[in-house]
């Protein structure tokens, strides 16, 4: 079964999967433009590129989810036509999705069964699930519903499900984006073992140090085109980045010495039960953010960051007024609008549907947060020219690229929309800015603009709180870093003392109080 070597010896160096001139067009836009790629057994092949470079489209084509406009796949030398994912699975191609393809209200075993093609009985499948998960050291409780599991455990389901197909080729889409450094190390151990078993792995990432450490070959995509195939171990991180971005990205720098002043945002002993039954309890969170300072909050997704953001923005009210203090005003019971009037501003993680109304124009989306604390509304009437003015100013200051003056939010690229959302808030010169995942899914150019803007804002005396999963980002801009785990917030560490290992341990809950959730997760083998 699993122990069997699935592929014959990679002797003649004939590629296992060959993609030839793969092209996928949507209307006039080419997501993939004539991409060639060779994957070999016993090799980890990295697919590198920025957001929007075409990585996901390419791998979805290889998994049969997307039909290419033109181009050809060859599997062990033979032409391969995929009409759907089960075709790909039957050939021995498996995939671990970035946005997991799981069903929250079904059990682990049911989720696994749905990812296989149902030739064996549920009992036989369950037995095999137990064996594979034991073999690879990926423990899972088959009877738990998925929504009860942490992000890391959910990824484990995806991986075990893929392994149970005994794949010859395993595609992994940004698997470490949601893991702690230690969890990532455990994953690498599994990946090395799969490689040694003679399987081919296609590994999508934009974390260059990871790729250098893990991969034998790397193919770099940019703007839907293949830029190069190289040996990442012989490249520097800088040279890889150049190929990905196509230009030098300037370092972000704090301008001048940032003098920290009085605390402008205070969270005092904030505890909150979630209103969503799948949510996380916030437990006794206390921290202060001074003017002129950027405080980073690290942590794996789903440990209470969303709940904390909602409590800070006022989308959820705190139990006591004093739980949240904005510029010396007790704000725990104030609405979003009232907090904005106190000079606070917020940037949520989700750009479309939370930060903006996707099908509304940018001017209307300027009004969305601007109606509270600017002069866009007089006697209940909207001053339309004022809203357009905000759009124009943001466009100019933050270099937002768009097709016309006032398009719908959804028509902008991720990076440009994020620049608009951050810019919309920063132009109001907020005294306190809370921002969640500021550069998530954003191209490097836009990310640099946004990080620079955050640094500049703090050096003008504002207090900035950044919630981010990206440790590199926090290392770049934060002065102090605290870690969220299971609704607890660790005491902050000065950024220069916060090593990856230290933060990683905190992200895994090392020094947090043991809580019931942890205990209930112990898995019997």
């Amino acid at each position, binding site marked *: 079964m699993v122990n069997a070597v699935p592929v014959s010896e990679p002797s003649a160096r004939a590629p296992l999967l060959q993609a030839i001139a793969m092209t996928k067009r949507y209307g006039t836009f080419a997501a993939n433009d004539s991409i060639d790629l060779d994957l070999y057994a016993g090799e980890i092949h990295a697919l590198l590129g920025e957001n929007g470079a075409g990585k996901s489209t390419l791998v979805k084509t290889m998994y*049969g*989810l*997307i*039909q290419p406009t033109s181009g050809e796949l060859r599997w062990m030398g033979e032409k391969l036509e995929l009409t*759907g*994912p*089960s075709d790909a*699975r039957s050939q021995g191609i498996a995939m671990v*999705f970035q*946005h*997991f*393809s*799981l*069903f*929250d*209200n*079904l059990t682990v075993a*049911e989720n696994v*069964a*749905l*990812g296989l093609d*149902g030739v064996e009985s549920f009992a036989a499948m369950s037995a095999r699930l137990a064996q594979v998960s034991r073999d690879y050291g990926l423990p899972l409780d088959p009877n738990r519903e998925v929504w009860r599991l942490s992000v890391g455990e959910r990824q484990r389901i995806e991986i075990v499900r893929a392994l149970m197909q005994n794949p010859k080729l395993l595609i992994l889409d940004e698997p470490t984006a949601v893991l702690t450094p230690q969890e990532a190390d455990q994953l690498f151990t599994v990946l090395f073992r799969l490689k040694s078993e003679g399987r081919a792995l296609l590994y999508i990432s934009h974390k260059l140090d990871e790729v250098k450490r893990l991969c034998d070959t790397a193919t770099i995509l940019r703007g839907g085109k293949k830029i190069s195939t190289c040996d990442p171990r012989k490249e520097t991180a800088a040279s890889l980045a150049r190929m990905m971005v196509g230009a030098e990205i300037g370092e972000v720098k704090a301008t001048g010495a940032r003098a920290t002043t009085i605390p402008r945002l205070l969270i005092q002993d904030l505890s909150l039960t979630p*209103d*969503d*039954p*799948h949510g996380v309890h916030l437990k006794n969170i206390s921290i202060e953010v001074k003017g002129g300072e950027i405080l980073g909050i690290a942590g794996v997704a789903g440990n209470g960051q969303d709940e904390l953001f909602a409590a800070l923005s006022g989308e959820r009210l705190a139990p006591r007024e004093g739980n949240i203090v904005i510029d010396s005003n007790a704000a725990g019971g104030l609405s979003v609008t009232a907090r904005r009037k106190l000079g606070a501003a917020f940037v949520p993680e989700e750009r479309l549907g939370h930060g903006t109304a996707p099908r509304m124009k940018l001017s209307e989306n300027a009004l969305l947060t601007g109606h509270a604390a600017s002069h866009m509304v007089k006697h209940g009437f909207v001053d339309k020219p004022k809203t357009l003015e905000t759009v124009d100013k943001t466009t100019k200051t933050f270099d937002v690229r768009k097709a016309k003056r006032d398009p719908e939010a959804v028509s902008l690229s991720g990076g440009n929309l994020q620049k608009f959302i951050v810019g919309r808030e920063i132009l109001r010169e907020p005294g306190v800015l809370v921002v969640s995942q500021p550069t998530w899914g954003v191209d490097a150019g836009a990310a640099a603009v946004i990080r620079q803007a955050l640094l500049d804002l703090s050096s003008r005396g504002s207090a900035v709180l950044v919630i981010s999963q990206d440790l590199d980002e926090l290392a770049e801009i934060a002065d102090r870093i605290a870690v969220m785990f299971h609704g607890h917030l660790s005491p902050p560490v000065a950024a220069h003392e916060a090593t990856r290992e230290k933060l990683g341990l905190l992200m895994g809950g090392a020094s947090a109080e043991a809580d019931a959730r942890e205990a209930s997760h112990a898995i019997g083998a």
Partner: protein
Amino acid sequence: MGLLEAIIISVIAASTPLLLAAAGELVVERSGVLNLGTEGMMIMGAACGFAGCWLTGSTFIGALCGIAAGCALSLVFAALTLGLAVNQVAAGLALTILGVGLSGLIGAGFVGEKITPAPHLYLPVLTGLPFIGKILFGQDGFVYFSVALVIGIWWFLYRTRAGLVLRAVGDSHTSAHALGYPVLKIRLLAVLFGGGCAGLGGAFLPLAYTPFFIPGMTAGRGWIALALVVFSSWMPGRLAAGAYLFGAVTIMQLHAQAFGLGIPSQLMTALPYLATVIVLVLISRARGSAGSVAPASLGIVFVPDR
């Protein structure tokens, strides 16, 4: 026949159309589609079912006509919501408006006509048993079919792989699509099944409940069936319990009217509708903090990218 026995038999009869329509809708909603057109499909089922039976003299063919009418209307709904990604609430309302109109048109010629009601199936000896005899072994085919239907749906949802796939599609259509399941096709089948059940539930009314057709004879039963699905928390067993409970309310108010307790008859007639509102409030309140148990993708439009 004792009074209690008679009451139970009439409760079962009053519950059957609700149970048939609600069971179909439960499957539809489990696949993630909200079809509010149940009332329209039921009344079309009633009109076409009566027409079929009147023309051929066969209850069975009448029932088939009712099913076909429900399926046909649900196909229109599917074309809109699955094919053209139209808002499911609006399309469901349109279906009801269309169904009410069409049934009036088709049924106009049959108003005042009579047919032989569906035969009751009597078994020697067993039907003669005291009390339970008539209740268990003296019903018409619709009643037995509705019970079998609910059991069948339970078995399908929780004991078959196809049922697992259906539940998965209702939980997350994006995940199901990513794994290669044909989300829209599965939903199409579910919607057609729901349409057939609603049509049959409607056909029960003129074929077995009252042996004639009157326009608007479903009188909101389609909407009550929708409320029953909410009440059931999308579980077949609770659905059956709810349907019989509602049947009991309907019969209770009829008997109360017959006794003439001095309560205005309109108030008694309003009872099932008021009960629906109250039950919806109670069930929603009870769930309150526990969150919704509805299928997670319910009512959300899905357009696959390819």
